[in-house]
């Protein structure tokens, strides 16, 4: 049980909202500390378990900053599981394995500079299934209509208590202004274009996105260890991702009390807080520390969690039959950019095609070749009707490969 921390700034009251403001500002680290970041969640799934190592980076930089050439192993139940670096900072266990109950697992890392880190011994948590995962059409607290995805779970033993949820959503995209032809630039210096047949699937695509928030819930203070109607995701009905077919995979991690507290603090500090009172931020350590220097700040938690997952699918018609479809991801207004500028240089059409910003929809006529130096019988000239690329090519928004799991 936890109070919702998603305080909204600007609706506290009229007189405050109209005078107060929240502005983004440019921040640069005046002091920078390089700390080892360890992402290590080992589950009861049989697979190549994955550990990611990186280092903190400057605020104004792009991350991550992988930690390479480290030795990583987990010892559990007198077995040593070695990890190998498969790409910079990404370490996979040599062999697939799954964490088993009543066994203590301990993480050992030695970085390239010779420093050693170790976790406290950790046991696998109680495994609890997702009882139900379901979508409901409803109006949320902010009076917005859409689809809510809820999860129910129940542990009759009462040992699970701390839950963390991740999801992965996949949805079908159909480009609304798809045509079979593409307009391509055949001569950049002379600004000439021609039609070409599309070489790949650009009409139907699928996009998959992972959750980016920390979704935690606990049943402490409840009379039973029951998760009921816990919100995983809310999708505005005007979102294009609902347009055809939508699927969501929810993973439920049962966490230890310590791991849960770590994620809770992480969520608290990365959330908005209240305008008037803000949590005092500071460093919070997990269960991993430096062997040589207890004062060294190490980020991350070695979590051995049991995980359960469930996937559901639904179509727009299942809930909104006969109702108007949500607008597409982008606005598909038509433009007629000029092929040449008044000075004879290449116009917006050529530049737009070359930068993949616009795509052909209709128009264009062939004109007799008037320049014998050009080895073509005829040339294509405008006006051309163009739209933003995503309207005619769904690969701008997703992948044209049907996912393995996809069921239509």
């Amino acid at each position, binding site marked *: 049980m936890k*109070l919702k921390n998603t305080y909204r700034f600007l*609706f506290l009251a009229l007189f405050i909202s109209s005078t107060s403001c929240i502005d983004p500002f440019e921040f640069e680290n005046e002091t920078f500390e390089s700390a080892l970041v360890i992402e290590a969640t080992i589950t009861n799934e049989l697979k190549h378990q994955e550990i990611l190592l990186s280092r903190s980076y400057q605020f104004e930089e792009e*991350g991550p900053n992988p930690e390479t050439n480290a030795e990583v192993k987990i010892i559990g139940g007198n077995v040593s599981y070695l990890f190998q670096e498969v790409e910079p900072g990404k370490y996979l266990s040599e062999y697939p394995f799954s964490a088993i109950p009543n066994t203590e697992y301990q993480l050992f890392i030695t970085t390239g500079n010779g420093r050693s880190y170790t976790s406290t011994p950790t046991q696998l948590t109680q495994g609890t299934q997702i009882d139900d995962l379901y979508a409901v059409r409803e109006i949320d607290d902010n009076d917005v209509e859409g689809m809510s995805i809820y999860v129910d779970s129940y542990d009759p033993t009462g040992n699970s208590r701390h839950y963390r949820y991740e999801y992965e959503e996949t949805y079908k995209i159909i480009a609304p202004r798809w045509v079979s032809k593409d307009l391509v630039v055949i001569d950049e210096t002379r600004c000439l274009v021609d039609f070409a047949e599309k070489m790949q699937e650009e009409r139907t695509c699928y996009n998959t996105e992972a959750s980016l928030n920390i979704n935690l819930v606990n049943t402490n203070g409840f009379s039973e260890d029951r998760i*009921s109607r816990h919100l995983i995701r809310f999708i505005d009905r005007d979102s294009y991702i609902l347009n055809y077919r939508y699927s969501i995979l929810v993973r439920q991690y049962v966490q230890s009390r310590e791991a849960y507290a770590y994620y809770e603090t992480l969520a608290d500090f990365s959330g908005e807080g209240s305008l008037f009172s803000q949590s*005092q931020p500071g460093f919070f350590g997990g269960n991993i520390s430096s062997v040589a220097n207890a004062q060294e*700040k190490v980020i991350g938690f070695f979590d051995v969690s049991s995980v359960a997952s469930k996937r559901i699918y639904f179509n727009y018609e299942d809930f909104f039959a006969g109702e108007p479809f949500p607008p597409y991801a982008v606005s598909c207004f038509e433009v007629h950019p000029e092929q040449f500028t008044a000075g004879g240089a290449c116009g917006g059409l050529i530049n737009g095609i070359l930068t993949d910003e616009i795509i052909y929809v209709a128009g264009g006529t062939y004109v007799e070749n008037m320049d014998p130096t050009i080895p073509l019988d005829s040339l294509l000239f405008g006006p051309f009707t163009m739209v933003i690329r995503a309207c005619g090519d769904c690969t701008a928004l997703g992948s044209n490969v049907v996912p393995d799991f996809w069921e239509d």
Partner: protein
Amino acid sequence: MKNHILAILLFLNFWCVFAQDNNPKISLSFQNYSVEDVLKSIEEKINYRFYFVLDWLKGTSVSGSYENASVDEILTDIFNETLINYYIAKDGRVILTKNNIIYDALPDGFFGNTTQGTISENNNEEEESISAPVFFNEATTTQRTPVETIRIGKEDKNSNRKRFTLSGTVKNAVNGAPVPNLALVVQGKKIGTVTDTNGAFRIELPAGLNVIETQSLGFETALKRVIIYNDGRLDVTLNESYEGLKEVVIDADADKNVEDTNIGSTQIDVGEMKNIPLVLGERDIFKVATALPGITNVGEGAAGYNVRGGKTDQNLILLDDAVIYNPAHFFGIFSAINPFTSDEVTIYKGNIPARFGGRLSSVFDIRTKDANIEKFSGEASIGPVTSNLVLEMPLVKGKSGLLLGGRSTYSNWILRSLDEKELQKSKASFFDIIAKYNTKIDNKNSIKATGYFSRDAFSITSDSLYNYNNSLASLRWNHTFNDKHNGSVILSNSHYRFNIDFDGNEATNFKLGYAINETELKLQMKYLHSETHKFDYGISSKLYGVEPGSVEPGSSGSIIEPLTIPKERALESAVFVSDNFKVSDQLTLDAGVRYSIYAALGEAAQRIYEEGLPKGEETLLEVREFGSNKVIETYGNPEVRVGARYFFNPEFSVKASYNNAYQYIHSLSNNTTVSPTDTWKLSDINIRPQHARQYSLGFFKNFEDNMYELSLEGYYKRTDDILDYKVGAQLLLNEAIEQEVLQGEGKSYGVEFLLKKTKGKFNGWLGYTYSRSFVKLDGDFIEETVNNGDFFPSNYDKPHDISLVTNYKLTKRYSFSANFVYQTGRPVTVPVGNYILNDVEYVFYSDRNQLRIPDYYRLDISFNVEGNHKIKKFAHSFWNISIYNVLGKNNPYSVFFVTEAGEVKAYQSSIFSIPVPTITYNFKF
């Protein structure tokens, strides 16, 4: 014209005598007689009577021999070398005067032809009323109101008394309240007195005419011609001087700045702060306080005050003797103290008198006005956010009265009427009400009773409703034993609670509550032993009861398990004595000592942890149970409160003090600012009391007849065992709170400069403070150590702080005011790097408070219009037009780092980023 001429007349001292024509002749001879004896001899020979003050004649002996001389001749000789004049009346009475001469006629043509009526009127009055003629000695020429002549007592011709006692009271003509500290001066004579706290005075006047002038800030100067024949009584009512009110005067007594022994105390006269520019039309005692050196808060809109580098929970805020736990509405934008019902606030930030205890940094002693016991009156204001109404009604005229005050906001109505959907759903409402009853049982007993209630409700998410309320009551019985001994018995109770109703999901709806209650009984005595020793002493005992938290299902379908954290109880008692010892005219000592004893009481369970290890589930040894009323732990501590003042000259003094204090109750907050859901925790086995020691030294100088006050104060303060929290601590509904708590050290020091102009068309003050405040959290383990165990600046460490408060009176009715504030930006904790976990970017914090937000500055202006001063008007009105933050400076309040859609964004927030104009209308009736 009349007064003018009279004044000229009276200014002139003639050393000549207008003798009587037909005076009898006598023969007399005397050798080294006292003057008195000579006069007696004359009295024996002829039917003359002499009236004089014996003191005037003492020590002179005269010799002389007269044959058939007139009395006039003899007296001329006798008094030739002295200051004595005499007047021989027709009926044979001879009045001796010192300095002044009695006239019975005027030199011919002295006034030209215009003066006849004027003088004769005066003469007639005298002739009719008294047989001993006396002239008026009026020194001022500017008084336009006619001076009232009052005759006191019945003349007793046989009485030889030269002096009579005049006593009475002075009251405010508007509300009948007594006027204390009013000076009554007899013009031309070195006689004067001051009214006491009940407005009563007692003065010995020489027989005959005395012109009494009253002098006080905030009241008209009144002149009374008092012709006194015998002991008597004179009650005076005075009108408030609006001129005086417009001034922003902090000290009531003109020379208090230099004279008071107590260093670091400040008074705010609430009535006088009405011209200070306001935000959203609310006069606010605390906002004015923060414009004074040494008192700050984290930022505008932040609740809680930091006094001389102290934490926000270290202020004892008393409303009529009862503690008010959360004196803020709407997070801190508004104060919960009604400005119309408040009379005076005394803030002690340096040497806290021994009669106060329980908090380390300051005492805000807020006093509610006594109700008008003469006539029904009221005051109301209409502002953009709130309205306020105060009524004062006499219950028994001249004896007892009742004051009722209420304030409420209409923000909910505003919010509901908006188009914006999100705003419609939010809620913010508050109100506060106060009632005070005062009665004077007799001259020795009076009773005052106050009741107060405030409530706030707000929602910041649509599924949770927060509300909190303060309620308090106090009863004070003042008793005077005799002239030297008086005392008060005070019984007070205060209660603070907050609730959170969460109504989102049927299964998880809950109601959460917290409450603290305290009841105190205090005996406070004053013993005026002598001019040199004045004692204060007393005893107090306070019982705390805390309900640290409870949660219950919010609806029948909720699976929330009811949970109640066990109640905490404690008894805090103290004895105190202090002596204001006047060592010499220059040096006064104020030596006080307080012994406080605290006992945490059962029924309770206490966790015992392994020594020398961080408190946690792993180091828990046992849970010790204590039965009901069993003492769990006691802490007893002597607290020394010593101050001294030394006068270099009457306008320049130096003061110093040493002060230590203990605090047994702590607020729990892991926020950077105060939040209404912060809870209070009592000391127990695991949480030690906080302790502070403060040294202060200051120089105080008044200039130009107390028109300018200048002070320079410095302090150094150390605190121990102040509470802080582990990162990410969960403080609400936590049974083992000690596992989350760190106790560390604090250090602060500063120099405070204040220049005040108390009088004149242009008045106000300029304050500058340089201060630092640090915290040190140095444990043996990484989770108990912050910033490597070194001192780091506190959240409210703002080294430079300038406040300018000014008021300029154009006329009696129109005035301009302006405030300017500049402060160093406060320290904030910022990331030292970013990292990625589960494909999401986060920031990484390390040391606290390593960066400062940009400096803060703000200018506010206001224009004030007083209604006209016609006496017969129904109500006296007052308009205030203010613009807060007229420069529109977007002052950052805080910075924060948020992960949005997997990426970190840096934001800064500000509360009042644009100019905020306000108009308020106030009226008094």
